[in-house]
């Protein structure tokens, strides 16, 4: 276990959240690895859908972008950009979506747009892409992110993708068909969201992590689940299968 990197740990824990037969909107890098790992282990019937319109890709190498040609060669299906978002995402056919971002807050709102003010930005980030659309329409949002104070903030500078807003009641008022944030997987633990309030809650401690370390790296008073568990350590099979997916260590550091 000692030789598992933080990235590897996050991918392995995130992959466990995927169930056989689910459909997942796959991003490049870490989410791609998590989906492919799940497919090789507990979820052989996982349906992988890419933002670029590719469905059921069978890539011969690790793609750099979600529009890589290797995601098309031998795919099951490909459609246009509007069709991908309309038929699959808005169509309610995606169970799980992975999102990242510069900031996430205690209600799972995500910022991938701007640090500072929108009109006069300190740092301009890439923006939503499909993130807001994914957040609004998939049943479960899973965020994979290093557990750092600059990423975990009590309130995001800009809500690119709505989480539970300022609590589950205001989320419900939006009337979105998605299920909202489901899990945040970091190098230290797994957080889920309180069913009533929608507030982020620590539910599982990764091997080696402590509640204290996690609280230190979270700038607000993070809720701890009364049923706090210990994350089962990565198995040999999980580790070797994952490493075979990224033999050149492009995404796993």
């Amino acid at each position: 276990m000692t030789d598992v990197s933080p990235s590897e740990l996050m991918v392995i824990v995130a992959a466990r959240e995927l169930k056989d037969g689910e459909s997942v909107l796959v991003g490049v890098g870490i989410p791609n690895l998590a989906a492919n790992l799940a497919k090789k282990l507990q979820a052989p019937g996982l349906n992988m859908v890419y933002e670029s319109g590719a469905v059921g890709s069978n890539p011969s190498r690790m793609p750099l972008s979600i529009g890589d040609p290797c995601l098309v060669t031998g795919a099951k299906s490909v459609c246009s950009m509007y069709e991908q978002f309309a038929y699959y995402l808005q169509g309610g056919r995606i169970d799980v979506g992975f999102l990242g971002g510069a900031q996430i807050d205690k209600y799972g709102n995500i910022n991938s747009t701007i640090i500072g003010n929108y009109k006069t930005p300190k740092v301009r980030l890439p923006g939503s892409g499909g993130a807001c659309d994914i957040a609004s329409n998939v049943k479960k949002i899973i965020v994979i992110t290093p557990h750092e104070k600059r990423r975990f903030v009590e309130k995001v500078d800009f809500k690119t993708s709505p989480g539970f807003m300022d609590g589950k009641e205001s989320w419900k008022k939006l009337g979105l068909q998605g299920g909202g944030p489901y899990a945040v997987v970091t190098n230290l633990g797994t957080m889920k969201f309180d069913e009533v309030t929608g507030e982020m809650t620590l539910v599982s401690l990764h091997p080696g992590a402590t509640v204290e370390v996690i609280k230190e790296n979270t700038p607000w008073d993070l809720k701890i689940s009364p049923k706090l568990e210990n994350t089962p350590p990565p198995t040999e099979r999980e580790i070797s299968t994952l490493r075979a997916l990224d033999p050149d260590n492009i995404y796993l550091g």
Partner: protein
Amino acid sequence: MDSTKLMTMKDAVSKFVKDGDAVYLAGFTHMIPFAAGHEIIRQKRKDLTLCRATPDIIYDQMIAAGCAKRMMFSYAGNPGVGSLRCFRRALEKGVPKPIEIEEYTHFGLSGRLFAGATKMPFLPMRTNLGSDLPPENPMMKTIKNPYTGEEVSIVPPLNPDVAVVHVQRADAKGNCHIWGITGEQKDAAFAAKKVIISCEEIVDESVIRSDPNRTLIPDFVSHAVVCEPWCAHPSYTQGYYDRDNEFYMQWDDITKEHETTMKYLDEWVYGVEDRAAYMKKLSSEKVLKLLPKAAYSAPVNYGSV
């Protein structure tokens, strides 16, 4: 009549792209028409509104070259690599000049284009609500769904002045076969007022007619047809050449400063006359690395009695 559509990229840009135009160089990762962007830079077009879901390197280059007044987009990053530094310099520091932005989600912008292509009065969609994007963009509105009473987000149609759409193969009249990631290729062509088709190869009309479902753009939608092999490099054309991921990663270094960016443009854009000259500058090693293995489609029978 139709044969007059065949022209060089230089002539097509000269004829159809005007200062101040809203342009859409189509391509979701795939078939981004770099050769058209470079020609627009060489012809010193200015005050353009650059529209694209993913501005990618090509719009970063056009911004550095001073062509852009405004950018309409949904993801301004270099996928898998990081930022578009020229865009950020323009936005954050006004270098080489300030740029206005109009920002959507992917679904919102591709939806605007789809609505423009099909002249929908407006497009209702299940997104945007709860995001901080709509308050920054007055083009996103809400409306009450008369069937349910719920609030619904809407966007208006987008009809760019001109679109450039690169495709694998077209006939001389502009009937286009497209495969792989079809992105916004069809919608951009149908939405734009003027359409420049660029293709890897011109084929006989009989090739097009052998597979009509593959024809996403019919001739009477296009205004110019440019035969421009390797038009999309460092983006790619499925089955013809792969994405030059190495260059996408190098772009991050090239653009560290405005000056280093301009040095690149001097050599690879201003310093070459056209795409053929650009390709001559590329090393054969690079070209060979990008050539795909063959993976042919199983044929289908379109026969009738």
